[in-house]
């Protein structure tokens, strides 16, 4: 909700009097870092044994050519209580995979990566998520009255401190959309979370009957919420009424050389996935 308050200014300034165009800009070149996409997501109703971790390198901002996959690393996840370890096997394409992971909600796990003579570690707790109770479509809500939006209904659990990550992607679209929510203002309530593609986006058409949108709702930890929220706020760039963008630091520490920290995050979530096909209304 807070972020929606903020987006108002961006929308208003842009809609009042302005024009945008794509320009050539010279940017600085920062240090190359390891990128850890260690998202151990346990889909409700599945065993959650098969998990992958991706390792890559960061590249110059406008670079489109460099292959960034990292191979030859050792990747191990440990259950902090039982000491059980899960080795992730190098698939030689930046992906490391295990088929025997055992997810436990509320359990703390540790990640250890050895790469290029340096050791990276991270620790995180697997966070549960509530169920989606209803998904439907409408036009009345959203920033655009005429555009179709999908509604995801769920009930926030009574205890405070639930955090959510939503991932929406229309089939056929190149990029997914991420949104986050916390229960600070809405604790314990039934929530109707809507998502639409409004016609302000000149490159994307609003939803149409027949479109299929994939919906994922993750239960996330507070530290991950703080992390992904900044990351999402900075997606697509930062306008004059938004906070100064920063180099977002995740939870992967370089034990050997702390300044050479890794991008990305070691997250453990429970996730509910569904999809919705828009109908004629």
């Amino acid at each position, binding site marked *: 909700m*807070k972020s929606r*308050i*903020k987006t108002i*200014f961006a929308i*208003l*300034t842009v*809609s*009042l*009097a*302005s*024009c*945008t*165009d794509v*320009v*050539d*800009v010279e*940017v*600085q070149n*920062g240090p190359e870092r390891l*990128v850890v*996409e260690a*998202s151990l997501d346990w889909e409700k109703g599945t065993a959650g044994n098969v998990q992958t971790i991706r390792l*890559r*390198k*960061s590249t*110059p*901002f406008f670079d*489109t050519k460099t292959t960034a996959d990292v191979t030859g690393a050792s990747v191990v996840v440990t259950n902090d209580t039982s000491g059980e370890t899960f080795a992730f096997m190098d698939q030689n394409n930046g992906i490391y995979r295990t088929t025997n992971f055992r997810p436990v909600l509320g359990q703390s796990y540790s990640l250890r990566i050895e790469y290029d003579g340096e050791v990276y570690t991270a620790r995180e707790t697997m966070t549960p998520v509530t169920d989606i109770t209803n998904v439907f479509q409408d036009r009345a809500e*959203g*920033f655009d*009255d005429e555009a179709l939006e999908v509604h995801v209904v769920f009930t926030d659990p009574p205890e405070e401190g639930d955090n959510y990550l939503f*991932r929406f992607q229309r089939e056929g*679209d*190149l*990029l*997914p959309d*991420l949104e986050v929510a916390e229960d600070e*203002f*809405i604790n314990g*309530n*039934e*929530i*109707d979370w809507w998502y639409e593609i409004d016609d302000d986006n000149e*490159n994307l058409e609003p939803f149409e009957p027949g479109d299929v949108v994939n919906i994922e709702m993750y239960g996330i930890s507070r530290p991950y919420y703080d992390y992904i929220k900044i990351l999402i706020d*900075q*997606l*697509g*760039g*930062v*306008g*004059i*009424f*938004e906070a*100064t963008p*920063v*180099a*977002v630091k995740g*939870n992967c520490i370089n034990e050997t050389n*702390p300044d050479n920290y890794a*991008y990305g995050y070691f997250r453990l979530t429970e996730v509910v996935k569904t999809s919705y096909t828009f109908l004629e209304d």
Partner: protein
Amino acid sequence: MNSKSHLNPATKTIVWLLRAFFLGSMLAMGQTSHTISGTVTDKSNGETLFGASVFLVGTTIGGVTNEYGFYSITAPEGEYVFTISYMGYNDVTININLNQDIKSDVEIAEFSTELDEVVVTAEEPERAILQKPEMSVVKMNVGTIKQTPVVLGEVDVLKALQLLPGVTNNGEGTGGFHVRGGAQDQNLVLLDEAIIYNTSHMFGFFSVFNADAIKDVKLYKGGIPARFGGRVSSVLDIRQKDGNSKDFGLTGGIGVISSRLTAEGPVFGDKGSFLIAGRRSYVDLILKAAGEDNSVAFYDLNLKTNYSIDRNNKLFLSGYFGRDAFDFDGIFENSYGNASGNLRWNHIFNDRLFSNLSAIVSRYDYYLNFDQEDFEWVSSIINYNLKYDLKYYWSDVFSLDFGANGIYYDFDPGQVQPTSPDSPVNPLKLDQKRALETGIYMNAEHKLTDRLTAQYGLRYSAFSRLGGQPITEYANAQPVVYNSTLGIYERGEAIGETEFARGDAIETFGNLEPRVSLAYLLNEDSSIKAGFSRAAQYIHLLSNTSSVTPLDVWTPSGPFIEPQLSNQYALGYFRNFLNKAYSLEVEGYYKTVDNRIDYIDGSELIGQNTIETEILNGEMRAYGLELLLRKNEGDLTGWIAYTLSKSEQRTPGGIAGGPGINNGDWYNTFFDRTHDVSVSGSYRWNDQWSFGANMIFQTGRPVTYPNGQYEYEDLSIASYAQRNSDRLPAYHRVDVSATFKPRRYQHKRFKGEWVLSIYNLYHRKNAAAISFGQNVETGANEATRTAIFGIVPSLTYNFKF
């Protein structure tokens, strides 16, 4: 033992000054002296004139009128030629025989009776003032402001000020202004002495000051007189017109964006006058007519009336109400505005002691209504200010300002209310905060020799953060903690709360603020001036964005936020030349600000009850060189302004531990501008046509660009470089305007003029922001520029009846 040898240099200086002062005043009393005092007003409308100079020809005895047009000068008995002069007005000369105290109210007339205030006049800007120690001051008259070409034809006080050295903005379409590398919230903006918290309409496209209702604009960039307090960078003192006390009149204008109408005239017989000025935008009406669901509107209302009880007592009542309202397609409504009122009592105790008592209320509030999500958001700040200022004209070489004031603040940083029973949002009220700010001051203007004049004063300010709210306690007293493992700043752990009762003070602060300046007259045409001033600021605007938004809330100093303290040193050279047709002002300054708050990465300020968990305590420094060359006379007038400056801030980890923000290194503030050049000119071709032009060049403002990318969640994530380590492209543009006064109106009571202006003549797409993201079709990263105003022509019709 000689105790004097223990005096430190500062004390010695004070002792010397005291001696000089008593000696001076004794000399003045040694022979019979008399005082001439009174008020200077404009002959055509009875408006009192602020800053008119009054002097006795052939002597060095003189002074200037105060904000209420009052003057008082004291001289030895004798016959004198008494002269009153004011820029743009004919001098008035009176022969006086000063053998007793004289009261003399003087009316002076503008240069040409053809000209009047609504018609853009060739009124000259002020020359360099050589003898007064007052420096770092910009005074603009409304005539000059109205002459400046402006975007969409809306005359704008703040944009005109930005054409002068040391004053910048934060890009088009953003509110407020920056003075000498200071932040927006470090400017004290006063409209008839009432604090204005937000100076912008429509998020900064226009300012809240309706030029038709304004008499004087004075900006103190440094050397802030001791009577002002509460902000560390500058004071913008704007005074509303009193209203025409001779004739009833209507003034107005019809523009592209808004229309204005001002009514003024005498009231209470000949005892007073009134002024009502209104302005309303009609973009919303146009949008509605065009079938748009979005709506945007603003309006202001300025009110003023005064009543003379007798010669020595006069009452003024002034008010301002302004509001912006947006309706975005019925999804959310948004409105915000300032409201203020001031009741003043001028009392003249005797011909040498002038006083003014003011009781002022001002309020700023912000409202949001989310129709769809069924909740509304309200935040506000209210203050009540009582202030008593006196000026004693002791002798021809010494005058003293002194007074006291107290401000009670009530901050309501935010409330969330569900607007329907099925709203998904729970009610929430952030803790209301209260505070009391008081100040006492004394300031002397002292002519030490014929060449050397000093202004020295002291202000003592105190601030109490009052109870009526709980204060959170944190583990290890750290509201913010450095997580050395992850290398990030995190919110501290709350371990309890202390509830403070309404009457109790949670925390108190006190500061001595010395203000000193000297002017030394080198010769008839040039002088050098030097100044030092210290100022304290107890309330802070919370903003972690590059531009302040109307939603940003003010917060008082308290257990976790220290008052900001600034020290500013300035040195200047002032010269009039070529028979005073030209003037040159060169000033250098160095300014430091302690306790400037800065925001940790990912700080969340909206709806935040514990601001202390989002901020660290830092400092600022700014320095620069300002140059102003003006041509004051002739058909072509104008100026060239150049500023070379630097503005930086640094925030160490402090009690939170760690290296601090940006590694604890100095970094550019959002408003650092290396070069800032403005050329502004106006040319009067004939009685019908006049022309104006501006040229502006500025170094691009500091921004943060990416320095790398990586893939995460199937998206390209930008990783950003150090804060403000990049810059937008340079900003430049040219504006022109032409004013046409049809001849047929010239001798009638009804007068009109057309103003055609073209903003950004060569359609430069100045970047207000450059943002970085992925193209949704190709997935490639790209940089997108947002430009606010391209070329904007506009036509305005002004009239006076």
